């Protein structure tokens, strides 16, 4: 059975995307990695060809597609070996906030640009002293007439340098209950008082411009708030299911690429005239990794369909996020062992993939947080 219910439209989309990525992205992956940035232009190209935000309704320039497109994008992008072009983050995690909670005016103003790639987005939740713990958030958003004044700093923000728009979570110090004090605001790049920090050096995702963001009496109109005052916590909660699932897609796809590449390398590499793949221990390693990947993929696909159906699968998506993001880490480590010194060279993709995979079990809520959530919702 095919778990994912693709239509002809999905298949055509995938084919077009494949061609696009092979032409416009894959050849430049190494260059962007060493430049530690993807060019703004690639966002526009991707947008103009219709590959950004496929779930945005047609009236705002999107395809009006379902979440299955996210799976397609995630899978096809994994073939490029580049994580820095964070289309899934933009399309499936950030822009949906505007789609779901934005006013008609906000949607008209921003969505077309998000789809066309003229607006690159970021979301700013994490702070230096508050990682997974939203209640520890210190950034404030205080009403001043018709404006909101934002103060605070955020860190580990993907697309932090390129972004034209950032969705900022900030708390109203006047509201005691933390769960009712957080609002989400749209802040345009260039707004006075909003400064982007320097790019952070990190283990992987070198072409991704992760940075700190600073808000220093940053004044925005109250109309830039998403939804109701104090509704931030609930909005975040509502969107986390899709965010976690998107991480799981990425984890499975990354694991698949790593394992495939290693398998093919083991066919080619010989030790004393015998291909590595003819060693039984190598075969077992590859079979075990492939089985884990198939098992993980099936679970993830089922959750994609459940999500498309609109089911509440909070326990399962928390599990999937941790399971499917541990996967590429475990597999990359084992593949490195198979390939030996050769695998450690950055000139082949496994070393980079290992570095890139490592953040997956940390971002979007650490895998420990995922287990806490699952335990809570399983009634423990």
């Amino acid at each position, binding site marked *: 059975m095919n778990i994912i219910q693709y239509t002809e439209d999905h298949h055509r989309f995938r084919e077009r995307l494949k061609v696009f990525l092979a032409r416009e992205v894959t050849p430049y992956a190494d260059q962007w990695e060493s430049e530690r940035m993807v060019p703004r232009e690639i966002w526009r190209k991707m947008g103009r060809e219709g590959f950004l935000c496929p779930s945005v309704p047609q009236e705002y320039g999107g395809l009006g597609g379902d979440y299955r497109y996210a799976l397609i994008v995630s899978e096809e992008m994994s073939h490029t070996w580049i994580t820095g072009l964070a289309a899934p983050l933009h399309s499936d995690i950030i822009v949906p906030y505007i789609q779901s909670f934005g006013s008609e005016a906000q949607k008209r103003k921003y969505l077309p640009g998000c789809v066309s790639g003229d607006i690159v987005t970021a979301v700013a939740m*994490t702070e230096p*002293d*508050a*990682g*997974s*713990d939203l*209640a*520890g958030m210190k950034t404030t958003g205080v009403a001043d007439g018709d404006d909101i004044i934002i103060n605070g700093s955020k*860190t*580990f923000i993907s697309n932090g340098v390129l972004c034209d728009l950032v969705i900022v979570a900030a708390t109203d110090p006047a509201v005691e209950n933390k769960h009712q004090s957080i609002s989400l605001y749209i802040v345009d790049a260039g707004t006075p008082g909003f400064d982007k920090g320097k790019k*952070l*050096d*990190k*283990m*992987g995702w070198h072409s991704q411009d992760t940075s700190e963001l600073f808000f220093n009496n940053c004044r925005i109109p109250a109309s830039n708030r998403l939804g109701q005052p104090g509704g931030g916590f609930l909005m975040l909660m509502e969107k986390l299911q899709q965010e976690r699932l998107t991480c799981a897609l990425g984890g499975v796809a990354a694991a698949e690429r790593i394992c495939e590449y290693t398998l093919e390398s083991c066919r080619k*590499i*010989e*030790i*004393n*005239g015998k291909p*590595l793949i003819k*060693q039984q*221990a*190598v075969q077992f390693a590859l079979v075990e990794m492939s089985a884990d990947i198939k098992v993980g993929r099936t679970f993830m696909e089922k959750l994609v369909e459940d999500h498309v159906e609109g089911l509440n699968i909070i326990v399962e998506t928390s599990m999937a996020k941790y399971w499917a993001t541990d996967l590429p*880490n475990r597999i990359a*480590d084992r593949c*490195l*062992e*198979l*390939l*030996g*010194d*050769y*695998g*450690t*060279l*950055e*000139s082949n993709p496994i*070393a980079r993939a*290992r*570095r890139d995979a*490592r*953040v997956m*079990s*940390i*971002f979007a809520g*650490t*895998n*420990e947080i995922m*287990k806490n959530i699952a335990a809570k919702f399983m009634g423990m």
Partner: protein
Amino acid sequence: MIEFSRSQKEIQKAAREFAVGEFDREAILEMEKRREFPEAQWKKAAELGFIGITFPESFEGGGSGLFDACIVAETFCRKDSSMGSALMSADFGCECFARFANGDLKAGYLSAVARGETLSTAAYIETLQDGPVSTIQTTAVRDGNDWVINGYKRYVVNADKAGCLIVLCAAGSEPVLILIDSEREGVEVRDVGKRLGGNMAPVSDVEFRNVRVPDANLIGGEPGLGLRQLKAVIDERRIRAAAEAVGIARGAFDRALAYVKQREQFGRKLSAFQITRHKIADMAVKIESARLFAYHTAALFDKGRADSTQIAIAKMTASKAAVEVCDEAIQLLGGYGYMTEQDVERFFRDAKTNQITLGTVHSHKDDVAGAVIGPKRRRP
């Protein structure tokens, strides 16, 4: 559980003071990124007697046992994995000089290496990896009073800087180790680019084209001993690698422990969460195991009673422990763990590279099984 004698504690103290004084984090981050051998620190380390610790005193070495060398390796790597490993690589290959070479060769090189005037290295890998190979493509042919060497060696540590290379060659059907000065005509070093880790002791490929060296450069003076000599080098290096792994693991552990004791989430120190505590306990157990193996094996080695199987087991265990401890350290530090400035991501990369260098997991297991079961025969 390992207990040091008074003099060993002094070595440890001296090494720690040197590391604290000379290992500058900012400088290391730069060097690692640019793949630079730590020239200045190496000179100073040599001055203070940290290079060539195990060389005879008559050749300006420390005249110490391997146990003491392990103390230095652990202490250096605990302070910094990349710097520590790089400094410890300065005399790679000299084990074989010290034990097998005749007086003239020793006089020519051991003192120079011990004084920090030149680096030594060993070139023995031709295929993927797998330590010593049984089929050697690099040839050494007698021509008058010279050897003429042709071949291609891979993953040679510090090849771009080393003054002398110990090269494994086939002289007809006899394996030999031959010393080749790097300035000889026909020695060409080829960059292989960055690696996952170990980037302060960068590896290169080396091509030998009609390289001519005098007869006297044959280590040990007679052909046929090359593989045995190389095995002695590798055995000794594996014990040192185990000690480096212990240091790397402890360095990552130190950083993780400090972090969880200071970082708060959900109103509690991370160190108050049982799951954090169990992770710390697991790490501590792994480190104990790695230390026990590394030092126990070094002590046996110094008594002349360590066999290759025990050594392989010690190296496997210690390097695996280091990888796992560093990986968990990244996870405990969360987003910070992924950032270069917090060290642990680099410790992980160095640990993983340490695990693969000098024999992969699979080749170690092949070796251990060979010792326990006897050699593999296909059809009885």
